[in-house]
């Protein structure tokens, strides 16, 4: 039997009390890498009690000292950059470049946390009345938790953990049981930092541990990234239990391509946006809307280039697209392609029944291009979370915007154009939280909040940027009079 991943609680690696385990496979080779425990409510309770006990001392640790831990943490991640990237490739199936890019963006979030001593400062005003001064202070709020997805196993936890603890909170992470190994290594580095016991904890598992975190009375707030259906459950459960919550859900990201766009450059970028991470990211381009003459050009250019993408094992540097996460994902994606075909769409490049020589047991779906997708069909409305790009036609800019705004999701949308007026109108009128202009993956850097509207986000304060400072702190007003 392969080794079982441990939890990290109260400054120590501990075995979960779980009786059930999730197998963790390399999705390209099918090799069993580890078993992830389905931790229990009791496991969570021990972690929360440790985090709560650590809070008072940690919040009174000077903020510059807390930030200094992040400096050391960053150095450790840089020193282990290639190792972490390889772990991500092996448990997720993405390419080395994608894994390196993920780790880089994780480091950006550590960089952001180093700014907490500046960002936590507040303001004040003298003489709001005669001899009376009023100030605000930001204080850490307690024990926070994050429930994170499989698709960015190293980066997404870092959207939350560094800022949360540098603000003076204590923190519990529950990563996806499909990809627990990058976070295991992340905690090995945190362990080397010698943080006080209980400041950071890792509880591996699925629904029981997530539910226990959401229902535990001593957890102040929960961050979540995953599907919309689960995000809604997380939001409702957390609010019912009186917690702060930020729940980032799924997406159906549209890209409008105008006739005035540089088609060659646009297609190059759209390839990365649609097929990067095999389409398994909440900012993946899902539908390209070709406006007017752009449609046929886009279709022809994409058809040639999509078919030429090199699919293979992520550890091979020349691989341009890796696997999807599991055989179950293969089945779901292939079924959706079939449904789309049944609805009358044209499967221009078909990634079904795909295989890679030497990796026949892998979870492969080839890059897929579907044309003539109609509104209200599966490819126009449902999140695929796989390497499938759909094409839709619009007669003009206004129709393209109408198509985009019909989506129940609002994570991201992009426009490719050389016309500033169209770009401006797009930014102004499209209902999505992250807008790209001539860039297909509108991913905010760590100092900006990660947008999301409609069914793509449940909550008030987003992850990252100043929103995260708001989320992880309590503002207190102090009114003083000395006589």
């Amino acid at each position, binding site marked *: 039997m392969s080794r079982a991943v441990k939890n990290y609680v109260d400054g120590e690696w501990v075995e979960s009390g779980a009786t059930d385990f999730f197998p963790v496979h390399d999705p390209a080779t099918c090799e069993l890498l580890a078993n992830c425990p389905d931790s229990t409510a009791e496991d969570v309770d021990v972690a929360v009690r440790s985090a709560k006990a650590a809070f008072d001392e940690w919040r009174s640790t000077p903020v510059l000292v807390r930030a200094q831990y992040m400096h050391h943490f960053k150095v450790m991640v840089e020193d282990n950059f290639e190792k972490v990237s390889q772990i991500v490739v092996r448990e997720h199936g993405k*390419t080395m470049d994608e894994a390196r890019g993920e780790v880089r963006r994780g480091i950006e979030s550590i960089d952001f946390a180093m700014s907490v001593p500046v960002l936590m400062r507040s303001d004040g005003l003298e003489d709001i009345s005669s001899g009376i001064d009023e100030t605000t202070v930001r204080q850490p709020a307690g024990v926070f938790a994050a429930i994170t997805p499989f698709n960015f196993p190293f980066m997404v936890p870092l959207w939350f953990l560094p800022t949360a603890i540098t603000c003076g909170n204590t923190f519990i992470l529950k990563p996806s049981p499909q990809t627990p190994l990058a976070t295991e290594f992340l905690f090995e580095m945190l362990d080397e930092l010698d943080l006080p016991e209980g400041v950071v904890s890792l509880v591996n598992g699925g629904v029981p541990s997530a539910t226990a975190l959401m229902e535990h009375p001593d957890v102040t707030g929960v961050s979540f990234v995953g599907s919309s259906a689960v995000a809604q459950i997380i939001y409702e459960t957390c609010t019912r239990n009186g917690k702060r919550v930020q729940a980032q859900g799924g997406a159906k990201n549209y890209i409008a391509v105008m006739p005035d766009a540089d088609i060659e450059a646009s297609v190059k970028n759209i390839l990365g946006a649609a097929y990067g991470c095999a389409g398994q990211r909440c900012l993946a381009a899902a539908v390209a809307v070709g406006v007017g003459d752009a449609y046929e050009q886009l279709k022809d250019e994409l058809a040639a280039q999509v078919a030429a993408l090199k699919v293979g094992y992520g550890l091979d540097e020349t691989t341009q697209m890796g696997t999807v996460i599991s055989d179950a994902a293969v089945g779901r994606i292939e079924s959706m392609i079939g449904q789309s075909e049944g609805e009358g769409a044209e499967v221009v490049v078909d990634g079904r029944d795909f295989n890679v020589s030497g990796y026949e047991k892998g979870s492969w779906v080839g890059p897929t291009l579907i044309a003539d997708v109609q509104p209200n069909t599966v490819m126009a409305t449902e999140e695929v979370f796989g390497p499938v790009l759909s094409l839709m036609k619009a007669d003009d800019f206004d129709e393209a915007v109408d198509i985009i705004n019909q989506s129940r999701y609002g994570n991201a949308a992009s426009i490719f154009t050389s016309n500033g007026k169209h770009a401006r109108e797009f930014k102004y009128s499209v209902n999505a939280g992250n807008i790209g202009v001539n860039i297909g993956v509108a991913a905010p850097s760590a100092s900006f909040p990660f947008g999301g509207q409609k069914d793509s986000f449940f909550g008030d304060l987003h992850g990252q940027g100043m929103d995260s400072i708001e989320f992880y702190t309590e503002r207190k007003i102090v009114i003083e009079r000395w006589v």
Partner: protein
Amino acid sequence: MASLNTFGAVFTFAIELEAQLSAYYGGIGDSAMAKAADKRRKKLERVRRENVVEITLEPIAGLDADDYALDLSDGSPDGQAAAARIAARFYRDAAPKINVRAAQRALERCGKEHGG
């Protein structure tokens, strides 16, 4: 590795090229050149780490590793000049393929150091 079709493939090839050159120069007793190649290798590792931009990763076309194979069996001045020429040509061809300016600049600089 044949086609250098990704950001990582280009940089990993460059890193391996400099590692080979460092060993080559070391083997023929030119410690200054060996040290310079090793310095470039380390710089390229840092550039690969710090300049990979996840949101603009795009396929790369038109670069093939086989076009830049070094003959490291010839330690003569002519052999050294030939190796430098191949390295310079690689950097000259690779730099425009990279869409991150800082990374592109690093490749250009390496090319110049090889006399390109």
